[in-house]
């Protein structure tokens, strides 16, 4: 954003925050799709076919949601 060259310690902080953001996004995707797709009776330790394809679709829709929200926040903040 600033046209100035940011000093290196600031770049480090940014890189760290970028990572923190990705980890948090991943964790929330895991939790949300677990809640949406996995049967809480835990009869089996494996994911069955239905759960597996639900997880694939859930992550895809979650990722798309990320995009929509990001666009709206972006335009809202600009």
């Amino acid at each position: 954003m600033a046209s100035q060259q940011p000093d290196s310690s600031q770049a480090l902080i940014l890189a760290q925050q970028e990572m923190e953001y990705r980890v948090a996004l991943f964790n929330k995707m895991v939790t949300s799709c677990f809640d949406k797709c996995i049967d809480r009776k835990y009869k089996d330790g494996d994911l069955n076919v239905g759960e597996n394809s639900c997880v694939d679709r859930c992550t895809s829709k979650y990722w798309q949601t990320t995009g929509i929200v990001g666009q709206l926040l972006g335009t809202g903040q600009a």
Partner: protein
Amino acid sequence: MSGPDASGFSEGQQQELLQAIETMQTRDSMRMYNNLVEKCFTDCVDSFRRKDLDATEEKCVQKCCEKFMKHSARVGMRFGEFTAAAEKQMAGLQGK
């Protein structure tokens, strides 16, 4: 929302404080973004027979997001008023 009292800090410390504030704000807006995605996803998406959001889900996510931002702005206004009133009261008590 007024920040904590910065008087009594040296210039270098104020610099440090400002950078800490900035770091915190970036972290906080990322957290807010993540929470918003999670909330609108949870409330709007419930069918997993396809891998793409359908039009209804997409619209729901958009409205959810808009609503949340407007809500958040309104809470921010109120929060500022409460904080200001509390600080005024504190100052009044100390002045006595």
